[in-house]
């Protein structure tokens, strides 16, 4: 590591930690980051399993017009994030064909929702002059401004989402793996699908306040994708995804703090992607070893 690049960083880890948490904003960033990482990993795992990456990405981007609109109207960005993400989740749920087929038309609809939402965000930004620096932090994230109040809201929202996921985990898993059989067994597949999209919307609304709208998706998709490469067992994969997500977030926050000009989003995505590539290489190597062993 380029230790000489910054005078703050030393070989004394305890001293580094003391510096890291010397400011209240950093403590808050770590609190918020941890909550966000856990919730994103759990919900993201189901998202990856259900192949709804595109819907998740769209919901994530919708936070941007929400926040921009709220700033323009002069209300708290929190309302904008949650209001817009929930509305978009219901929109996407409405576009989904009842029989579960017709993916390509559904994805065209999702694409339209996404582009229109972003266009609205641009409109709000241009109506509200002098907001240009805000655009960057809305899109690419900033951990500097997390208030105590936001941490409390995130904690409540995160606990609510996790409780809801825990409550519907079994039927959701069933409905995600085999919707036809699940429906035949009396699982309310369609209602679960709508409910899951709403949970996804709430999650990204919370997460995007830290990571920015463009990079929420990194936390949602990469740790679960990495975990699924490492283990096929659902419960273990959830634990692994959460662990990866938390470690990546902590590392990214620390590095972004010690090397100030670079955006946190860059480090977050880079660490998560490095983990993903590493897991893919590990998986490939172990597959080859197994097939060699089988051949021998």
């Amino acid at each position, binding site marked *: 590591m380029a230790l000489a690049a910054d005078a703050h960083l030393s070989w004394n880890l305890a001293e580094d930690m003391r510096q890291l948490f010397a400011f209240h904003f950093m403590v808050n960033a770590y609190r918020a980051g941890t909550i966000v990482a856990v919730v994103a990993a759990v919900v993201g795992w189901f998202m990856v399993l259900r192949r709804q990456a595109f819907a998740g990405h769209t919901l994530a981007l919708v936070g941007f017009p929400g926040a921009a609109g709220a700033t323009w109207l002069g209300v708290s960005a929190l309302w904008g994030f949650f209001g817009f993400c929930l509305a978009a989740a219901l929109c996407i749920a409405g576009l989904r064909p009842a029989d579960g087929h017709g993916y390509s038309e559904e994805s065209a*609809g999702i694409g339209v929702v996404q*582009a229109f939402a972003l*266009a609205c965000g641009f409109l709000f930004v241009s109506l509200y002059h002098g907001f*240009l620096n805000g655009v960057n932090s809305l899109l690419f*994230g900033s951990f500097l401004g997390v208030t105590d109040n936001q941490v409390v809201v995130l904690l409540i929202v995160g606990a609510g989402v996790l409780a809801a996921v825990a409550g519907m985990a079994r039927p959701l898993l069933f409905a995600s793996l085999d919707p036809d059989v699940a429906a035949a067994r009396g699982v309310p597949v369609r209602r679960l699908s709508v409910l899951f999209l709403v949970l996804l919307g709430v999650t990204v609304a919370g997460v995007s306040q830290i990571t920015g709208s463009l990079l929420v998706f990194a936390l949602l998709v990469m740790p679960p*994708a990495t975990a699924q490469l490492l283990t096929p067992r659902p419960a273990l994969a959830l634990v692994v995804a959460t662990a990866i997500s938390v470690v990546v977030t902590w590392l990214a926050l620390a590095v972004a703090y010690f090397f100030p000009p670079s955006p946190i989003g860059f480090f977050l*995505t880079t660490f998560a992607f490095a983990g993903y590539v590493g897991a893919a290489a590990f998986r490939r190597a172990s597959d080859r070893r197994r097939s060699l062993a089988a051949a021998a």
Partner: protein
Amino acid sequence: MTALLLAQSAGLAHIFGHAYMRNAFLAGTAIAVAVGLIGFFVVLRSQVFTGDALGHVAVTGAAAALAIGVDARLGLFVGTIAIGMAMAVLGRQGQADDVVIGSVFAWILGLGALFLTLFTRSRSAGNGNAGVSVLFGSIFGISSANARVAVAVAAVVVVGVVLIARPLLFASVDSAVAAARGVPVRALGVLFLALVGACAAEATQAVGALLLLGLLAGPAGAAARLTARPYRALWISAALAVAAVWGGLTLSYLAPRVPPSFAILALTSAFYLAAFVAGRPRRTGSRAAM
């Protein structure tokens, strides 16, 4: 800005009296035709998410070019075409997996964030708008030389699509049978994503990297709901895209506070919504009418 306000008071009659308006219409029309045609195949092949990813790659390409100080368009074209072809080559059957696409472009976007930060810090505050215009487009800022380049690139894309339309349609609808009949399915997939990449780079100049998805998916999605005939849908898609661009430019000319990108996207969304409500509810059955 004053020119815009004067233009408004002069009314619609003088809309083509302004050079920036003529350039915007020229480039906008060319881009709309190309994106509309490409969009039809993007929707047909269920590659909307890939198109989305290429739009985000465009952010990084342009930001990287700005950060190292070369023309943003170079970064746009190199970035989107290279990543588009890489996606086609790496994916099975020329189609990449959602999760792989998502992981790759999330990281590329993180790189884009870094480049944008480097760029905005290295320049004076007055130039900080360049990042925003990459993200959301600046069609009124297109020079006449840029408009001619846009027309030339769009012409290449349109000719490319028309040339491969028949085999591509076959390969998209039933790739296994097409492969058995000797259609080079994989090569077509790679070529197609290269064209999508070129299109994405073009459209970034008009509506911006974040909004080109609407122009790609909206008209094509609407066309797919209006007719089951592929060639008819292809032309409807192009026509709707052109209508959205013309209407959007006119709206933005009449109401200068509304950015042209928003007006264009609002129209494509309206078209899609109208087609969604009015269009045929089921694909099966109407297929027999082909």
